[in-house]
């Protein structure tokens, strides 16, 4: 007679398994596997400064009345300063990608060896990028230097979280003029025009296209529409010439709005994006994108897709071009396409409206800043770290690893990689007309409102006029609330 498993026995067994699972979960985590050691020759630029020692001899007459044997001065004690540097995991030595581990390690090691005799060193603190955690650490004085999004530059400097770098920059011969013009403008946009951080890397949206299907990339919107029509007519079915993310649309088009003569804020900082000619510009831009949808020239699903969610259609070979971040060739295409397929892809600046004289493209990116600290030694060390981590050599190495664009003009002139890599060249070409979004707090609600208006119009929930009216009302409401602060 077979013995059945009783309910009590089953529950006992399940409890034991559960307890065992909890015990193993509570066990000390295994040390992460040591990263693979990769010997990589990092290009170094040696800078030799000649120092001249001039000896002068002069005769001095002295009357010696008393001989005193001088006591040797005690050796000056080196004060050890550890710069606690907080950065997201994806831009640290803790990232899973070996090239980033090596790049960021080399920057930290070079600082430690250069400034070790002074007693300075850097301790990296990777975190998940949560802004609340970052602010807490700053306010509790648990960090000395931080990596943060450029959009927080004015807010954090206004909240007195960051240290002004100007004095230290002057001492070491660093100058904000060595950065791209739009970078200089942003760094000097703080309330007192001082530099509170240095911009480490930037990126911009690009137009990626399969050169076998699209031999000549469209430069303007009408060219784009014609190309899409041709492909739909020729191939039809699931094949499309282009896909654009509607979630995150404002990031690709904020510059094109400016190219058409639009204005976001007036001189007092009041939103004017929904008034007069500015409103007409939005209507024109919306009409272009709604036309792409209505005429089935882009996949209908893109209405509620961001840059990543639209990529499966690209990998499936259903879409021959898309608008994406300037490092998408490394982040998305290369890991997900076979080598032969990947080689078919290249990039160009995003097509711009025919009425605009040129395209203007949004520049994003990340900065490194020193946290305001009453201890002058720590402040000096942290500021020096910021300058070191964003100097020409460091930027060359780390930006290559991240497929970002450095923010210093000299790198483009001196670095062979940036001079020859086609994706980098295209990105740099686009950034020649780079713009930075207003760093005013109203930008967030305003851009979200414009985004929602497009979504409302694209899904047919509201007409374009009503959708933009709602965006205007929402923005002004938020503006009034911000003014009260």
């Amino acid at each position, binding site marked *: 007679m077979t013995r059945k498993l009783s309910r009590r026995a089953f529950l006992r067994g399940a409890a034991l398994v559960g307890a065992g699972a909890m015990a193993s979960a509570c066990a000390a985590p295994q040390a992460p596997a040591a990263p693979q050691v990769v010997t990589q020759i990092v290009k170094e630029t040696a800078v030799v400064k000649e120092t001249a020692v001039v000896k002068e001899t002069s005769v001095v007459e002295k009357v010696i009345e008393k001989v005193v044997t001088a006591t040797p001065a005690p050796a000056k004690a080196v004060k050890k300063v550890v710069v606690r540097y907080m950065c997201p995991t994806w831009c640290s030595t803790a990232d899973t990608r070996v090239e980033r581990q090596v790049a960021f390690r080399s920057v930290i090691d070079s600082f430690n060896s250069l400034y070790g005799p002074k007693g300075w060193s850097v301790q990296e603190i990777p975190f998940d*990028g949560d*802004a*609340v955690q970052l*602010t*807490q650490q700053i*306010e509790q004085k648990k960090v000395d230097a931080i990596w943060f*999004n450029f*959009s*927080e530059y004015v*807010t*954090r400097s206004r*909240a007195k*979280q960051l240290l002004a770098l100007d004095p230290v920059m002057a001492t070491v011969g660093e100058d904000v003029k060595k950065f791209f013009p739009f970078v200089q403008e942003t760094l000097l946009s703080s309330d007192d025009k001082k530099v509170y951080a240095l911009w480490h890397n930037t*990126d911009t949206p690009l137009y990626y296209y399969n050169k076998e299907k699209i031999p000549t990339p469209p430069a303007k919107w009408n060219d784009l529409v014609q190309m899409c029509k041709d492909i739909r007519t020729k191939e039809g079915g*699931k094949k499309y010439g282009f896909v654009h993310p*509607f*979630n*995150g649309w404002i*990031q690709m088009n904020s510059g094109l709005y400016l190219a058409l003569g639009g204005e976001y804020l007036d001189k007092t900082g009041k939103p004017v994006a929904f008034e007069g000619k500015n409103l007409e510009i939005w209507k024109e831009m919306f009409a272009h994108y709604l036309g792409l949808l209505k005429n089935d020239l882009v*996949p*209908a*699903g*893109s*209405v*509620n*897709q*961001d840059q990543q*969610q639209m990529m*499966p*259609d690209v*990998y*499936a070979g*259903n879409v021959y071009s898309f608008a994406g*971040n300037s490092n998408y060739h490394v982040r998305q295409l290369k890991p997900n396409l076979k080598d032969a397929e990947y080689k078919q892809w290249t990039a160009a600046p995003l097509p711009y409206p025919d009425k605009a004289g040129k395209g203007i493209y*949004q520049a*994003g*990116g*990340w900065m490194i800043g020193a946290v305001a600290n009453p201890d002058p030694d720590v402040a000096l060390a942290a500021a020096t770290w910021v300058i070191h981590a964003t100097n020409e050599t460091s930027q060359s190495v780390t930006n290559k690893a991240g497929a970002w664009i450095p923010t210093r003009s000299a790198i483009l002139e001196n670095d062979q990689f940036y001079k020859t890599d086609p994706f980098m060249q295209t990105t740099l070409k686009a950034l020649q007309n780079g713009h930075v*979004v207003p760093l005013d*707090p109203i*930008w*967030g*609600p305003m*851009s*979200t409102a414009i985004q*929602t208006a497009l*979504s*409302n119009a*694209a*899904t047919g*929930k*509201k007409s374009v006029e009503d959708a933009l009216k*709602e965006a205007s009302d*929402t923005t002004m*409401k938020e503006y009034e*609330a*911000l003014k*009260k*602060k």
Partner: protein
Amino acid sequence: MTAALSRSTRRLERFAGGPWPFILPGVLLYLALSIYPILYQSYLAMTDMQVTSLSSAQWVGLENFAFLFSDSRFLDAIQFTLLFVLITVPVQYTIAFALALLVDQKLRGRIVFRLTYILPLAISSLIIGLMWRLLMHESAAGFINALLEQLGIGTIPFFSNPNWARFAIFFVNIWSSVGSTMVFLLGGLQTIDVEQLEAATVDGANAWQRFFLIKLPLMRQISGLALIFMFVGTFGIFEKILALTFGGPANATFTIGFYMFATAFGARGAWGTTAGLLGRAAAMGVVMFGVILIFVLLYLWLVMFEREEA
């Protein structure tokens, strides 16, 4: 003094000998992990705290609440959340009850059925959302649409059409939560005295009569509790929306929980961030707490009212 000392010693002995030493750790833990966060959130809701400046928050009183109740997006979010609850809770309850009745029977392999229905409980809500996002993808990459195309039915715009997006959220929420409700109700069914059912059978009651006249009435309290848990869980839905629709298209799937997240943390990335309005997000949380509390108190009052009548 000796008398006072012996009185306090006796009090201490009564305290140590009573239930308090056993209850106190749990009570303190509950206060720390439940009551304190609620009180702190209520305080936050009256400030203008932001993500980039936590310590310099100013007291603004009821300003955040005034803003919310004049904000059409918030009112739309409340409306959708209530619609979401009113649709998914009864459907989820009905399906869960039917499944519980099914697996309560002495069927061969009923353990396998039970395990299958509660499998979604083992998967986190975010993963469930991501999984269904891929399955429902509006192209050849989506399994469901690929299958529908093969059958000649045509594709469904799950995420680009507001109504279909809402359907997707309803479906995924019911699919992932029905298992836990089923387990709850199954436990209740198994407490029903078998002799009552046998007696009813002997008296000539058919299956429907046994269900409606015996099982359902005896399951009233358990069902009430299940409904409360479902209401609370559904009202605060967030992760599945984050993974599936991100509140779109056109804010069609904005619930209060998701709007709270969007207000507090927004869409952060290399190209800009929203303001990170923690105070306003906390105010939304207080409103959500208030609605849930009203519902739960209403239920408890009804239960007490029934008991008094009995």
